[in-house]
C-alpha cells in the first residue's frame, strides 16, 4: 500500500523572511531585491482509462536583482546553501557592474502595506497521489462503463512567493491551485468530448460531473457532418470565451500602444483609453481579491495589487503601465503584475444559460473549446485556431447534431462587437495545457458573424 505522503512543502512567512535576510546579507549593491518562489506540484496523468504517469516535485528558486549605480543585473538559483546564495548574489552584482547604465531604472519600492492573500486551500495542498488516483478513477470508470476511452490530467500546486528588498520591503503570499481536465473519445476515434475545471480549492472540482459531461459530449459528437466554412452565429461555452478573451492581454501594454504598435494605438498617435472598442455590455476586470478570481496581493516588483477595470461598458478604462512608463507619462502604475497574467480576469455576463442561448439561435454553431490559438495580425488582435472536442450545429433553436471541426481567423475584439447575448459567468480552465493557471471567469455568449475559414478532418 502507499505510504502517507508528506504534506505539500511550501516555505512559511518566517522561513521566507529568514532566507531573504541571508541573501540580503551577502549583498554589496546599492539596492537589492530578492524574490523567492517555493513550492510543490503534484500531477497524475491518465490515458486509455488508466493512470499513465504521475509526478511530484518540490523546489525553491531565489532570484536576486542588484542595482549598482544606475546599472542592473539579475541572477537566480535553487541552491539554498550559503555557497549557492552567496554565488547568486555575486553573479547578479557582477552582471550589474558590467552592463551600461539603465536610463529607465526605477528605485526599489519602500515598504508597502498589503492585504492578506486568501487563495490558499488546505484540501488542495494535502491532496496526495492516492487521492488523485481515486479522483481519476471516477472518470476512467465512467468512460470504461460507457465503452469509451478517457485521457486526462489532474494537477495541484502549492506555492509560496516572497519579495524582500534592501529598503525593508517584505511581501509574502501562499496559494494553491487545482485543475482537472479530461478528453473522452470513442475507441474508433469517431467522437471526442472534453470537460475541465480549475479552482484554488480542490473541493470545488467535481470529477464525476466532469467525466459525465465529457462522456456525453463524446457520444454526441459521433457522426459529425461537414458544414461550409464562412460566417456563423456562434454559441460559445465559457471555456471557449475564455480561450479568446484572454488574448486581449497580449495587447494591454500601455507603452506598446503609445509607441504605435498595438491594437490599442489610436490612429494618428496616442492610445485608446476612453474609446469604445467593444459592445457596451462588456466589462473586463482583474481583481485579486474577488472570491471568484483570487490572485496574488502584490506584483513582481512589490506593488500592492488592486482592482483594475480594463474595459468598462465597452470603453477602454486602463492599459497596463509599468512603473517607468507610468512615471514618464504622468500616470499611476497599474496594480497588476504584468496585466491579466497576475492571474485574475473576469468578464461581465448576463442571465442566459447555454440552453437559452441555443434556443435563441436560428442557425449557428455551438463550440466547446478552441485549440492551437496563435496570433496572426497584432494590429487587430486577430488569431487563428480550431474548434475541438464538441462542436455542434444549431438549427431552429435546437442542437441538430455534431459538425466537423473548423478553423477560425477571428479577433476577440470583433467577436465582442458582434455580441448578441451573454450567460452567467463561471470559472473556466484557463489554458490549453490544462495546468491550474490563472483565475479566469467567463460567461457563455452568443455572437454573430464569427469567421470560420476552413474545415478540419480532425476529431
Amino acid at each position: 500500500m502507499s505510504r502517507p505522503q508528506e504534506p505539500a512543502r511550501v516555505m512559511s512567512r518566517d522561513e521566507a523572511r529568514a532566507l531573504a535576510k541571508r541573501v540580503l546579507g551577502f549583498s554589496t549593491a546599492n539596492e537589492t531585491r530578492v524574490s523567492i518562489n517555493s513550492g510543490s506540484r503534484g500531477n497524475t496523468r491518465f490515458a486509455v482509462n488508466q493512470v499513465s504517469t504521475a509526478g511530484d516535485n518540490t523546489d525553491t528558486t531565489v532570484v536576486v536583482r542588484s542595482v549598482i549605480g544606475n546599472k542592473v543585473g539579475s541572477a537566480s538559483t535553487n541552491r539554498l546553501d550559503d555557497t549557492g546564495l552567496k554565488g547568486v548574489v555575486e553573479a547578479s552584482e557582477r552582471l550589474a557592474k558590467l552592463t551600461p547604465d539603465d536610463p529607465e531604472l526605477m528605485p526599489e519600492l519602500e515598504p508597502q502595506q498589503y492585504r492578506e492573500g486568501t487563495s490558499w486551500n488546505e484540501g488542495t495542498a494535502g491532496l496526495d497521489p492516492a487521492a488523485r488516483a481515486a479522483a481519476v478513477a471516477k472518470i476512467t470508470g465512467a468512460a470504461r462503463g460507457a465503452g469509451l476511452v478517457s485521457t486526462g490530467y489532474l494537477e495541484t500546486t502549492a506555492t509560496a512567493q516572497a519579495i524582500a528588498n534592501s529598503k525593508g520591503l517584505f511581501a509574502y503570499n501562499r496559494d494553491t491551485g487545482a485543475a482537472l481536465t479530461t478528453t473522452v473519445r470513442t475507441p474508433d476515434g469517431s467522437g471526442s468530448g472534453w470537460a475541465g475545471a480549475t479552482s484554488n480549492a480542490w473541493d470545488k472540482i467535481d470529477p464525476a460531473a466532469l467525466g459525465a459531461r465529457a462522456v456525453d459530449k463524446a457520444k454526441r459528437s459521433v457522426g459529425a457532418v461537414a458544414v461550409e466554412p464562412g460566417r456563423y452565429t456562434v454559441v460559445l461555452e465559457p471555456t471557449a470565451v475564455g480561450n479568446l478573451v484572454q488574448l486581449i492581454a497580449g495587447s494591454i501594454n500601455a507603452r506598446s500602444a503609445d509607441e504605435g504598435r498595438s491594437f490599442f494605438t489610436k490612429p494618428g498617435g496616442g492610445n485608446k483609453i476612453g474609446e469604445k472598442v467593444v459592445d457596451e455590455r462588456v466589462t473586463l476586470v482583474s481583481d485579486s481579491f474577488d472570491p471568484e478570481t483570487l490572485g496574488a496581493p502584490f506584483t513582481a516588483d512589490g506593488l500592492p495589487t488592486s482592482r483594475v477595470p480594463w474595459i468598462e461598458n465597452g470603453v477602454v478604462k486602463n492599459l497596463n503601465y509599468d512603473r517607468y512608463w507610468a512615471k514618464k507619462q504622468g500616470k499611476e502604475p497599474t496594480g497588476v503584475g504584468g496585466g491579466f497574467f497576475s492571474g485574475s480576469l473576469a468578464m461581465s455576463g448576463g442571465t442566459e444559460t447555454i440552453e437559452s442561448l441555443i434556443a435563441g439561435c436560428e442557425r449557428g454553431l455551438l463550440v466547446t473549446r478552441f485549440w492551437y490559438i496563435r496570433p496572426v495580425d497584432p494590429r487587430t488582435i486577430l488569431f487563428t485556431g480550431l474548434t475541438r472536442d464538441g462542436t455542434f450545429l444549431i438549427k431552429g433553436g435546437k442542437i441538430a447534431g455534431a459538425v466537423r471541426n473548423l478553423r477560425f481567423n477571428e479577433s476577440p475584439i470583433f467577436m465582442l462587437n458582434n455580441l448578441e447575448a451573454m450567460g452567467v459567468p463561471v470559472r473556466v480552465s484557463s489554458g490549453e495545457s490544462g495546468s491550474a493557471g490563472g483565475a479566469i471567469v467567463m460567461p457563455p455568449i452568443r455572437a454573430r458573424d464569427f469567421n470560420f475559414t476552413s474545415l478540419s478532418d480532425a476529431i
Partner: protein
Amino acid sequence: MSPSRRDFLRTTAAATAAGLVLAGTGRAETAERAARLTNLVSPGDPAINELLMKALDAAKSAGADYADARVSLNRTQAIFTREKRVGGLSDNETFGVGVRVLVQGSWGFAATNELTPDAVARVARQAAAQAKASRAAERRPVTLAPAPGNQKGTWRSEAKVDPFTIPIEEKVQLLLSVNAAVMKNPQARFVTSNMFFLKEEKSYANTEGALFTQTIFRSQPTVTVTAVSKDFKDFQTRQSTDIQPMGRGYEHVTENKLEENAPRWADEAVQKLSAKPVEVGRYDLVLHPTHLWLTIHESVAHPTELDRAMGYEANYAGTSFVFPPEKMLGTLKYGSPLMNIRGDRSQPGSLAACGWDDDGVQPESFDIIKQGVFVDYQTTREQALWLDWYYKKLGKPTRSHGCSYSQSWADVQFQRMPNVNLLPGEKDLGWDDLIAATDNGIAIIGEGSFSIDQQRYNAQFGGQLFYEIKGGKIVGMLKDVAYQMRTPDFWGSLDMLGGQKSYFMGGAFNDGKGQPSQSNAVSHGCVPTRHRQINVINTGRQS
C-alpha cells in the same frame, strides 16, 4: 557507502562547489561553513554518482522493478536589449534530482532540489509509493524494450566556445551595435535584440547498469525590428529567422554576423509597410528552409509520435491522423515520392543531438517516411513493444528509437521527437532554381504564425517575408499572407525540392507537449520545396 566515505565526499563536494562559484574571490571557505552546506554536489563531482546509486538503492528497497535517476544542473543566460538600452541581464541555474520508478508495471516519479543522500532516498521512496497509489486493478502493465549498446561514458555537444566563458560586456556591446545598425533606418523605429544560452550537465543512471554524463549547449541570438507607418495605422515586424537556434556554443553568434545582417532586417521591416496585400487564391508556394522547418515540425514530426497516435496525449497535444498503426505502417501515402523523412539525434549542432536519451538508450537514425510512404513512428522503450508485431514482420529487432526526453530534473521523461529531417533531393537544385521554375507563385521566407489541429490535418502558416513570383522571377513583396493546408494533400503536392547544397537546419527551443507541458528543443533539417496550388488567405481584416 560508509559514514567516513560520505563525510569525505561531503567535504570534497563543498570545496568543489565553492571553487566553482567563488573563483577569483580569494576567500577561502572554512570547514565550519562547509559543514553547514545542505547542497553537497556540483556537476562532475563523484558525489553525484553516489547520489544516483543511493536513489536506485532506495527505489529497489521500496519495491521498484526498475528505476532511473537524473541529476542535472541547468545554467541559462539571457540578455535582452531594446534600442539603446539593456532591458534585462540574468544568469540562472537550477540543480536537482528526479527519480523514476516502475513498480509492478506502474510508473512513479518524484523530484527535489535538495541534493543530499537523505533527500534523494526520500524522493525515491515517494516515487515508489506514488506508483503503487496509481495502480488500479484493471490495467495494462508497462514493460520496457531492451536498451542495446553501450550505456556508460560521457557525451558533449559539439560546441567550440562555451558561451558562459564569453564576457558579458562583449555580448551586450554586440547587441547594442546591432540595434544601432538597425536604427540607422529612420522608419525602423523599434528594435529588440536578445541572446539566450544554455549549458546543461546531466548525469543518468538506471538499475540496468547505465551510468553516463552529458553536457548540452544551446545558443540563439534573435533580433526583431518593428517599423511603424507615419500615420500610426500600420506596423510590421521582421524577425531574424535566418538565424535559427542551435545546439552549438558562442560560435553560433559570431559566425552569423548580426551587425552585417541588421540593416537588411531593418529594410525588410520597412518594405513590409508598403508591400501589396495578397489576393486570396491558389498559388504554387516556394518555401524557404527557414520557413519550412516549422511546417515539417507540425505536419510530419508531431503526427508520427507513437504516444499521440495511441491516444496518450489526447487531452492536450492531441492524437494523430496516422492511426491505427496496423493500417498505416508501410501503407499510408503521406506525400509525393520526393518526400523522405528521417529521425536523427546525431547531427552535430542539432538541438536534439545527444549520446543517450532519457531512457538510457543510444539513439539511432531511422526512416519515418520513405519515398512518400509512412514506415515508422518515433518511440521510447515503453512504446517500441507496442509495435513488436511490425518489427517482427520486417525482421528487425524491436528496440526504442531513443525518443525519451525530459526538460529538467523536475519533470518526468516521455516521448519527444528527435530532429525530424526532410532529406535533400537527388538533383542539385537550390532556392533560385525553384523560383526560376515557377510561373505564378509566392515565395515564403522565415517562420511566422502557425496553428494546426489536434490530429495534424488542417494547418495554417504565415511567414516573415512573402514575394510574388511571376514567370520565374520575384516581382515584388506581398503582405498579409497565410496558407491553409491539409497535411497529406500538401505533401502530395510537393513536386520540386532542393539538393544537398541547399540543406539548412531550423528549429525551436520550445516545442510544447505533455501535461504538465514540457519544452523540447529540436532541429529540422530541410531543403527548399515547391508545392502546387495551395490555398492562400489574406489575414489583414479590419472588422
